[in-house]
């Protein structure tokens, strides 16, 4: 009774870790975006292959540590000769690339479905179901030719009509998935969406294997958007589909059928997903006949790896876990950069932070290295531009490192007119320098950030009033503009294009606005040539680094532990483990 | 003379309390014959209830304990019996009813079920037989509409009716001895008379011996064949009822009788025995009544008087009637006036 009630309340204790496990860690489709995380600690991510050495200095902690001696493998693992068990957080059971949302549904869908093009280790793309793609001079018409041997797991061939059917599903008025199909500007998509047209005029089926798509306006992402579409079998998914109502398609979410390396045999919600190799896969049947995704949680996933109950799992990165897993001996421990970064947003429209000099002073005045060290030890790095150093768009040419420098910060604040008040707190034309800071609770970074930031800013003469809040509550305060500072994290997409730093961009949390940066991003979006785009984004990052609209904190890492008996992986921060499942084999 | 049913031999029951050991029952001996109604009389706290509870062995063990003496029932010493054998006797051969009818019945069980329990337990009756017997018992104790009563709950009955039910429960297995611990004290006079009449005609029908514990001399006069008077844990006088009323020997008994109001005799102030019942802790070797006794002599303060038999069956524990007492106290006045 009373005990029961408080037991129920106490259950929210796992609030933070649940939020991390499946709540805040949602990702959009792999092609467009990578996971955003707020307090996320366990989203799957890629490993850095040997040659992708991080830019600033060899970082021994990050990278792959091979298993020394797979003979130590415990009995349960050795006994599994024809199957592999992969630990995962419970998927939602939405096995359909149009609708899936969590990273865990992604991982399973990537084994069941494959699209026309697929991502490579460095974030660029290569052909998959399609064998060649022609682009018209005006970059507005894209013609995809599908491989002859591209078949669905039920043996039926993948045809252009399936591609058209799938595009219709995307353009349907009741499509509520993660992608934003209308933004691809396919000609005729708006009419189909509105229901005024029965067909999509911009898409023409030339023959069984060729389809051409015309867009009204193109940008660097158009080819990726159109290529990453997984053609769903019209025969299987089309039954009962009427324009305007996708419910018949959604009913097949837990009974998927696709052209990927595996096909689903059994799904027990909340427990496991059993998959079998798809003999009709165009890349040849996978080498591991049976694949089992078993639901694990971060309280016991490490123990299961050690006891051989699971072959692969994502484990929270901290010194204890890494040390423990490395000491086991038969596990490959991949510590790889997470596609995302933590930052302290400042309300640039708030008079406190309007002056660039103040923002720079606040960045100098915060000992970011100590926060990162306290929170993640060697497994995270301070960053100064909003991009992962693994991405082709990364640059560190004339980027200010803002190393912790108390005196510089103090002098900059004096120059900015914030004089030390009687009680040690700075004042400027009568207003005290007091910052209201909000952060989500139960997060290793916040536990370290708040005390250190309070201490640092006290020395600077700034009073910090901190509070912990539910993430959505912070977002709502942001939308109302009623905030000074808050801590959150952003996900990075393989493509550098984003709305975070554009004036009034959908994701612009800091109210930052710099017309030059806006122009650079617009140019970058339109530019198709990779080298030119690198140049554009480098300039943009230099300007953002200079303006310091927010205090960029860290880029952390994820850890993927894999039993040494499985070989043939090709894992990078962009190419997740499930993409190489079709070539992995069990070493005898 | 009927055969002796129960015999208390130098029973000692003591209670350990924070203030010291209380000798609630201090060397008590008397016996009850078959079919006889014996009344145990005395002020509250004189040990009469404890004597009964010792017979039933229902003394709450942490503070209280039977430390000495014997209780013979049909020749067998109950104190030697095992727990199982004793519980087989309780409710079967020896039954008991209590003072507080309001809280003596289990509030959550029906009347019928509570009466049937001893029948099922002791006599192994089937439910059907038990029900018939219960209906019979309810009628016997003078309650109308037995079937309705059978299914009703204790809180639906009045105090008098509940006491009748208690009697029905006690008599269910035709006990040889019925102990009644102040059965009518909590009831008003009219109901009291009915209960006593009921007990009397049951005794005549089933030849049950009754051990009536009371402090009401009216009840004693009406019910008792034989009377035992107790004071501060000891038996100070016992005699057949007429003999006791006609010729009370012990000053305490005389005091009790004098204190009884007599109809149509106006009295300014009712006589009351001076003083208080002594503090029960370590009373010592003396006549416990000495500080309230008009005829108190030196010896009374130093030595406990033995219970001496005088006329047939009339025993008294008082130095006035002992040789030693007579020798050194010549000037004793006349022994109190007998009052009917």
């Amino acid at each position, binding site marked *: 009774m009373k005990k029961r009630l408080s037991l129920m309340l106490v259950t929210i*204790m796992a609030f933070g870790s649940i939020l991390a496990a499946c709540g805040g860690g949602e990702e959009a489709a792999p092609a467009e975006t990578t996971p955003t995380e707020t307090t996320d600690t366990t989203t799957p991510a890629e490993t850095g292959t040997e040659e992708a050495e991080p830019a600033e200095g060899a970082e021994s902690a990050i990278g792959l540590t091979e298993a020394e001696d797979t003979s130590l493998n415990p009995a349960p693992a050795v006994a599994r000769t024809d199957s592999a068990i992969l630990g995962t957080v419970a998927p939602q059971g939405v096995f359909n690339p149009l609708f899936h949302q969590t990273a865990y549904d992604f991982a399973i869908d990537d084994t069941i479905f494959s699209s026309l093009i697929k991502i490579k280790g460095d974030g660029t793309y290569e052909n998959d179901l399609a064998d060649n793609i022609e682009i018209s001079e005006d970059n507005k018409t894209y013609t995809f030719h599908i491989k002859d041997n591209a078949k669905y797991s039920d043996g039926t061939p993948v045809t252009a009509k399936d591609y058209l059917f799938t595009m219709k599903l995307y353009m349907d008025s009741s499509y509520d998935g993660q992608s934003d199909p209308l933004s691809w500007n396919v000609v005729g998509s708006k009419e189909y969406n509105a229901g005024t047209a029965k067909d999509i005029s911009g898409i023409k089926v030339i023959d069984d294997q060729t389809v051409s798509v015309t867009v009204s306006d193109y940008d660097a992402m158009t080819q990726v958007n159109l290529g990453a579409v997984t053609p769903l079998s019209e025969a299987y998914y089309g039954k009962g589909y009427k324009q305007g109502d996708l419910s018949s398609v959604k009913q097949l979410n837990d009974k998927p059928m696709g052209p990927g390396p595996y096909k689903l045999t059994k799904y027990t919600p909340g427990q496991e997903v059993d998959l079998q190799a798809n003999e009709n896969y165009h890349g040849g049947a996978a080498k591991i006949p049976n694949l089992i995704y078993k639901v694990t949680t971060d309280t016991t996933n490490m123990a299961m790896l050690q006891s051989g109950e699971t072959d692969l799992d994502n484990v929270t990165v901290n010194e204890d876990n890494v040390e423990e897993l490395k000491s086991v001996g038969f596990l490959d421990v991949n510590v790889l950069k997470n596609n995302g970064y933590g930052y302290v947003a400042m309300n640039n429209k708030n008079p406190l932070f309007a002056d660039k000099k103040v923002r720079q002073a606040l960045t100098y005045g915060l000992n970011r290295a100590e926060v990162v060290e306290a929170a993640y030890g060697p497994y995270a790095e301070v960053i100064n531009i909003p991009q992962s150093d693994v991405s082709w768009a990364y640059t560190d040419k004339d980027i200010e490192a803002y190393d912790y420098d108390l005196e510089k910060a103090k002098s900059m604040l004096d120059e900015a007119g914030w004089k030390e008040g009687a009680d040690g707190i700075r004042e400027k034309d009568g207003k005290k320098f007091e910052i209201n800071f909000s952060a989500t609770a139960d997060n290793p970074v916040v536990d370290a950030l708040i005390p250190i930031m309070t201490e640092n800013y006290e020395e600077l003469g700034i009073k910090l009033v901190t509070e912990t809040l539910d993430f959505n509550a912070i977002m709502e305060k942001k939308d109302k503009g009623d905030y000074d500072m808050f801590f959150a994290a952003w996900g990075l997409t393989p493509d550098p294009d984003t709305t975070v730093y554009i004036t009034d961009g959908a994701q612009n949390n800091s109210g930052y606005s710099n017309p030059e940066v806006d122009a650079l991003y617009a140019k970058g979006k339109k530019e198709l040539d990779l080298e030119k785009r690198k140049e554009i984004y480098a300039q943009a990052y230099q300007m953002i680094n200079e303006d310091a609209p927010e205090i960029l904190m860290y880029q952390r890492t994820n850890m993927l532990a894999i039993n040494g008996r499985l070989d043939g992986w090709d894992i990078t921060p962009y190419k997740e483990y499930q993409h190489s499942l079709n070539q992995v084999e069990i070493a005898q | 003379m009927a055969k002796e049913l129960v015999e208390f031999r130098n029973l000692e029951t003591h209670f350990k309390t924070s203030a010291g050991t209380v000798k609630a029952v201090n060397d008590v001996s008397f016996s009850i014959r078959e079919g006889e109604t014996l009344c145990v009389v005395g002020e509250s706290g004189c040990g009469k209830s404890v004597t009964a509870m010792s017979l039933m062995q229902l003394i709450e063990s942490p503070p209280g304990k039977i430390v000495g003496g014997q209780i013979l029932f049909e020749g067998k010493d109950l104190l030697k019996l095992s727990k199982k054998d004793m519980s087989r006797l309780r409710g079967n051969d020896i039954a008991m009813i209590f003072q507080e009818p309001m809280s003596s019945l289990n509030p959550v069980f029906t009347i019928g079920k509570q009466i049937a329990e001893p029948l099922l337990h002791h006599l192994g009756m089937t439910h059907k037989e038990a029900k018939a017997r219960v209906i019979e018992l309810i009628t016997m104790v003078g309650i109308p509409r037995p079937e309705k009563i059978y299914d009703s709950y204790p809180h639906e009955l009045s105090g008098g009716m509940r006491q009748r039910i208690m009697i029905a429960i006690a008599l269910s297995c035709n006990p040889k001895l019925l102990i009644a611990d102040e059965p009518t004290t909590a009831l008003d006079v009219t109901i009291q008379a009915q209960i006593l009449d009921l007990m009397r005609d049951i005794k005549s029908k089933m030849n049950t011996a009754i051990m009536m514990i009371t402090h009401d001399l009216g009840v004693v006069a009406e019910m008792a064949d034989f009377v035992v008077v107790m004071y501060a844990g000891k038996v100070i006088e016992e005699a057949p009822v007429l003999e006791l009323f006609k010729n009370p020997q012990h000053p305490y008994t005389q005091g009790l009788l004098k204190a009884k109001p007599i109809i149509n005799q106006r009295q300014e102030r009712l006589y009351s025995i*001076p003083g208080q019942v002594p503090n029960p802790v370590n009373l010592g070797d003396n006549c416990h009544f000495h500080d309230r006794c008009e005829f108190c002599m030196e010896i009374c303060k130093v030595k406990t008087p033995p219970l001496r038999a005088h006329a047939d069956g009339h025993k008294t524990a008082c130095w006035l009637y002992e040789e030693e007492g007579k020798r050194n106290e010549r000037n004793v006045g006349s022994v109190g006036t007998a009052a009917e």
Partner: protein
Amino acid sequence: MEQPQNRMEQLQEQLKIVKPESPWKIAARRFAKNKLALVGLIILVLMFLICFLGPLFSPYELNQTDVKNKNQAPNGDFWLGTDKLGRDILLRVMLAGRISLTVGLVATAISVAIGATLGAVAGFYRRYADTIIMRIADIFLALPTLPILITLGAILSDLKIEPSKRIYFLMLIIGLLGWVGLARLVRSQILTLREQEFMQATEALGLRDSRKIFLHLMPNTVPIIIVSATLGVAGAILTESVLSFLGLGVVPPTPSWGNMITAANSLIEFRKRPWTWIPPGLCILITVTAINLIGDGLRDALDPKMKNR
């Protein structure tokens, strides 16, 4: 033969008229006799002293973090070792005690006060009051506590309430969420007691209802109230840490026993650094045990039916 007229003096002298002891004094005497209850009282007082006076003697500051000596086992200068930010755990446990003890006791007091009164009123008046109060209780029980807490957290931050002041809201919230259980228990007891003879006697005396409820009925429910209150304290202490997550209570780095235990939520932390979670866990255990011992002692002391043991 003394003369009758001085009989009255004799009686008075013998009776040694003693001023009768007030029920509370008897209860206090009985409570004092109960060794276990006394031990409980002493422990509780000690806990309060340590938590409120202890920090003054500690050489360390509250938020003094230095990552150099993080995760040190108990040693010379850190008697109970340090946590992963290098903060002295002994100091944090003491400071956490201030919050957890006050929250635990005050919140429970609120829920007991509301629960017992509403329960008694519902039980006594039966028809209308009972229906209304019990339906409100049903609604309270049926409401999803988590969304409410999130909303409250957001409102508090919008109103710019000083984070350190929010602890008082926390106590109120825990109290408000906790009363329903006790209300139902007290109500069912009152329903039974209401039927008993002594209540008809109070009717005969024409006592005011409030006297009937509080002076005659409530003392009988004392045992149930005490048990539920003592159980409630442990729950309140642990609930506090949950509410602090949602911004309703304690903001890190301020420690509370609840959030110190939750910090150790991995098997490794469990095994390798027991000194981070054993002290707060132990403190809660000691406090809860002490409170329950006092509860037992109180119940026996206050229980009118209790024979003088």
